[in-house]
């Protein structure tokens, strides 16, 4: 059986991932991706994978998002899809 908290997080994950891919503003997409990473980090903390959660927090929600934003700043912000 899976705790309800898990299920909520998982549903949120799907929602954020879809949003991140549908938003046409790449900066917003990167930000939503950051949220996605953070959610998944929570999920892992909840699943007792603390080391993974820690890494994901530092890497996924931190560095990945920052370098993605940096790229968006150095290229174009608008996307056609």
């Amino acid at each position, binding site marked *: 059986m*899976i705790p309800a908290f898990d299920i909520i997080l998982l549903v949120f994950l799907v929602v954020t991932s879809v949003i991140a891919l549908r938003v046409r503003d790449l900066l917003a997409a990167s930000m939503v*991706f950051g949220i996605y990473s953070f959610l998944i980090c929570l999920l892992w903390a909840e699943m007792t994978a603390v080391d993974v959660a820690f890494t994901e927090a530092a890497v996924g929600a931190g560095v990945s998002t920052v370098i*993605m934003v940096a*790229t968006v700043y150095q290229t174009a912000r608008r996307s056609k899809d």
Partner: protein
Amino acid sequence: MEFFEQLIIPKFNYWIYVILMMIGMRAMIAKNNLVKKLIGMAIFQTAIILFYVSIGVKEGANIPILDHHMMPGEIHGGDPVVVAEFANPLPHVLMLTAIVVGVATLGLALAMSQKIYRAYGTLEEDDILSQIKLEPND
């Protein structure tokens, strides 16, 4: 209902991971914008990590760190370790590596997309392709 109880509920994690993975994979293949593709790629990779971490979960288990009183500093001693109390550490180890690989790939791909932007002035795949068609090449 039977189906729901036996296949969906106890394996909800696996279902979601498949869905996330498919979302990411579709973005990787079908999205036009290179950064979007990379976001898809990151989602794709985290989905796999989700799968692995789900493998290692144990009902009612704790984080895979032994308590201090189990580690009295000496080698043999302290309380016996109950395996069921600790989550499976192996998937966690594997996924640390996978996360690192993910960010390395992402960084490299972002660098490439910047270089592509430098060369073509756009990140839209179809625009780039139409520019390439004008070039004299095979």
